[in-house]
C-alpha cells in the first residue's frame, strides 16, 4: 500500500564537507544513507529516525538532521502528529507502537519547584571541606531500636531487616536483557559495582557472565517469570516484584521472537525465536493478599536475607496501593511515573495512562506518614529523572532514592529516538543484532555511567551543603526546602509545598 506518511526530518548533507567515507552508510541500520555505484553518498529522509548516530560519527560534521514536521493545514485538533497516527493505522490496522517515555508536554513539576539555600542565619556547608553524606539504606526499618547494656557497652537488641546500602541515592532502573543488549547490562553492572549502587535486571534474567556482579544486582520477578530460578534469586542483593511499569501501566510486556537469540533464550529460559510475553497481571496475584504471599515466598526462598521490592506504576490510587504494599510486607516500594521509559509500549497507553512521579512521591510519602508506617518501607522513585536537581527534589518530596533508566541510556549514547521496539538501535543499546550490539563497548558504557552518577552526586552534595545540610536523610521528605512556582493551590497541596516567596514555616 502506498504510504501517505511524510518524512519528519530532513537530512542535510554538506557536499563541501562530505568526503564520501561512508561511515554514515555503515552506521545506519535504517538505511537512510545510501551509496550509489559511483561511490557517492546520498540520504533518504523518510527512513531517518533522527537517532543522530551518523551525525555523531561523521568525521567532517557534514551532516545535520533538521526538524521537518510535515506541513498540514493549521489545525489545533488535527495536528500533523494526529494525522500521522491515523495514516499509520490505516496502513497497518495495528496498535501504534513506540519506545522510551511519555514525550507529551504535560507539566513537568520538577521545573515548578525551587530549592532553598542558606544565607547568614545558617551557614552553608562546603562539601569540599566538610563531609557530605549521601549514603542511604534501603529496606524496612523498625520504629525504634532496643539497646541492652553489656559490660557498660550498648549492644543492639533489635534484629534489623536486610538493607541495601547505596553510596549515593541513585540506582539504575530495571532494563531487561533482551530489550537491551548484553553490553548495556554489563555496563550497568560494572558501573554499579564501582559506584556502590545497584542495577536491576528487569524481567530478562541475569546473564551467566554477570553473576559476579550479584552483590550489586537487583533481580526482578515479573509476570512472565522469565529467568527466575533459585540461583538467580540467591545471586542477587535484592529481589523486585514487578507489578507495573510507568510507561505502560496496566499492561504486560512483549519481547518479539526476533530478539530472542541464543543468549537471551538461555537467560530467560525460553526457546530461541519465541516471543516472550509477560501477562498484564501476575496470574498468581489478583489481590494484595496474593502479593503478600509472593513477597513471603521470596523471603522464605532466600531465608530473609534480602530486601523485597515491589515496583508499581504511578496510577491514580498510588498512595493507597503503596500503603497496602507496605503492609503486605515489602521492604521497598519502587514507583514508576508516567514519564518512565520502555523498550516497547502502545503509544496511546504510554502517552495517556498514569500520573507524574512528582505527585506520586508526594502522595505516597504523605500517606505512609499519615499511617505512621513510613519507616517500614523505603521508596524508590523512577520515571524520567533528567538531572541531579530532579533527583534532589524527589528526595525532598520524600523518596529515599531514585532509579535512572532513560538518563542511563542517554549516558551510553541513546538519543531518545523512540525506535527501541524495532531492535535496530544504531547505538547498540536496544538491540540483539550482534553487528549493532558491538557499537556499545562495555568499557565505554561503564565509564560513562560512572561519570554521570559521580557528577550528579557531586552536584547533590553541593546543593545539600548549600541548604546547610550534611546528610541526605535530613533532606528526605523535608519539603520546607522546596518552594513551588506557578502551580495551583491544589497541586501545591498534593505536593505539600508552599509558594516561592512564602517565609520559612
Amino acid at each position, binding site marked *: 500500500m502506498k504510504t501517505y506518511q511524510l518524512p519528519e526530518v530532513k537530512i542535510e548533507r554538506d557536499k563541501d564537507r562530505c568526503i564520501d567515507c561512508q561511515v554514515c552508510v555503515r552506521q545506519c541500520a535504517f538505511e537512510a544513507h545510501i551509496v550509489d555505484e559511483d561511490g557517492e553518498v546520498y540520504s533518504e529522509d523518510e527512513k531517518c529516525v533522527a537517532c543522530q548516530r551518523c551525525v555523531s560519527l561523521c568525521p567532517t560534521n557534514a551532516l545535520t538532521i533538521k526538524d521537518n514536521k510535515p506541513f498540514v493545514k493549521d489545525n489545533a485538533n488535527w495536528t500533523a502528529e494526529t494525522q500521522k497516527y491515523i495514516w499509520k493505522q490505516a496502513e497497518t490496522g495495528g496498535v501504534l507502537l513506540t519506545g522510551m517515555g511519555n514525550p507529551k508536554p504535560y507539566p513537568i513539576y520538577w521545573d515548578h519547584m525551587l530549592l532553598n539555600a542558606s544565607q547568614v542565619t545558617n551557614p552553608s556547608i562546603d562539601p569540599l571541606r566538610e563531609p557530605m553524606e549521601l549514603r542511604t539504606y534501603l529496606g524496612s526499618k523498625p520504629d525504634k531500636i532496643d539497646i541492652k547494656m553489656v559490660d557498660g557497652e550498648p549492644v543492639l537488641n533489635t534484629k534489623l531487616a536486610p538493607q541495601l546500602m547505596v553510596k549515593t541515592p541513585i540506582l539504575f532502573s530495571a532494563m531487561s536483557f533482551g530489550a537491551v543488549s548484553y553490553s548495556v547490562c554489563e555496563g550497568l553492572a560494572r558501573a554499579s559495582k564501582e559506584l556502590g549502587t545497584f542495577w536491576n535486571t528487569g524481567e530478562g534474567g541475569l546473564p551467566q557472565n554477570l553473576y559476579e556482579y550479584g552483590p550489586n544486582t537487583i533481580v526482578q520477578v515479573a509476570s512472565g517469570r522469565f529467568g527466575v530460578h533459585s540461583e538467580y534469586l540467591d545471586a542477587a542483593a535484592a529481589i523486585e516484584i514487578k507489578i507495573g511499569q510507568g510507561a505502560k501501566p496496566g499492561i504486560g510486556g512483549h519481547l518479539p521472537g526476533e530478539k530472542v537469540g541464543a543468549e537471551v533464550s538461555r537467560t530467560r529460559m525460553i526457546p530461541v525465536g519465541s516471543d516472550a510475553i509477560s501477562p498484564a497481571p501476575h496470574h498468581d496475584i489478583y489481590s494484595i493478599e496474593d502479593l503478600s504471599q509472593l513477597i513471603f515466598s521470596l523471603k522464605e526462598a532466600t531465608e530473609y536475607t534480602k530486601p523485597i521490592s515491589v515496583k508499581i506504576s504511578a496510577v491514580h490510587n498510588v498512595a493507597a496501593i503503596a500503603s497496602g504494599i507496605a503492609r503486605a510486607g515489602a521492604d521497598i516500594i519502587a514507583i514508576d511515573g508516567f514519564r518512565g521509559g520502555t523498550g516497547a509500549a502502545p503509544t496511546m497507553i504510554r502517552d495517556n495512562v498514569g500520573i507524574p512521579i512528582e505527585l506520586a512521591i508526594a502522595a505516597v510519602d504523605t500517606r505512609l506518614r499519615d499511617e505512621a508506617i513510613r519507616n517500614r518501607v523505603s521508596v524508590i522513585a523512577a520515571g524520567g529523572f533528567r538531572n541531579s536537581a530532579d533527583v534532589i527534589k524527589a528526595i525532598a518530596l520524600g523518596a529515599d532514592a531514585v532509579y535512572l533508566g532513560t538518563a542511563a541510556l542517554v549516558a551510553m549514547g541513546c538519543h531518545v529516538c523512540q525506535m527501541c521496539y524495532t531492535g535496530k538501535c544504531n547505538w547498540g543499546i536496544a538491540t540483539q543484532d550482534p553487528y549493532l550490539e558491538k557499537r556499545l*563497548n562495555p568499557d565505554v558504557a561503564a565509564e560513562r555511567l560512572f561519570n554521570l552518577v559521580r557528577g550528579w552526586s557531586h552536584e547533590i552534595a553541593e546543593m545539600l551543603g548549600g541548604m546547610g545540610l550534611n546528610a541526605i536523610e535530613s533532606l528526605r521528605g523535608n519539603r520546607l526546602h522546596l518552594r513551588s512556582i506557578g502551580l495551583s493551590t491544589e497541586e501545591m497541596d498534593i505536593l505539600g509545598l508552599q509558594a516561592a516567596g512564602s517565609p520559612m514555616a
Partner: protein
Amino acid sequence: MKRVYTKEEACIGCRLCEVHCLTEHSRSKNIIKAHKKEFPRALSRVLVEELRPVSFAVQCRHCDEPVCVEACITGAITKDESGKVVHDEEKCVGCWTCVLVCPHGAPRRDLERKKVAKCDLCPDRETPACVEMCPNRALVYEER
C-alpha cells in the same frame, strides 16, 4: 614496544580509523582537503577486514621477525632499534614483494605513486591516529 592492538569484539566496522589514517598521512593533514583536494590522495595504512558482524582493523604488526624485511629487494624495509618496522619510501621501488610475503596483508600498494604504504605508528603523534579516533575504543596502543 608499544603496538596497536585490535579488540575485535569492539570493532564496529565504521572505518573511521581508515579515514583518520589517510588524513594523518596526507600533506595537509586536513581531513576535507586530504580526501577531496589532494592528488594523488594519500592512502590509509590501516584496513578494516569485515564479515559482518565480525570486523577488525589490520595494520602492520611490526613483527619481531618481520619477513618483509628479509624479502625487501632494495633494503627499503628495516627494523629499527626500537623494534619498529620502518619503510623508506626513497628506496622503495614498488616491487610488491613485501605485499606478497606479509602474512597479515598489511602493506598496501599505492598504485599512483608506485610505492608501498604501511603503518609508521604516526611518528608525529603520541598515539597513532587510528587508535585515538576510534569511536568505540576498539584499537589500543600498548605494550604487551
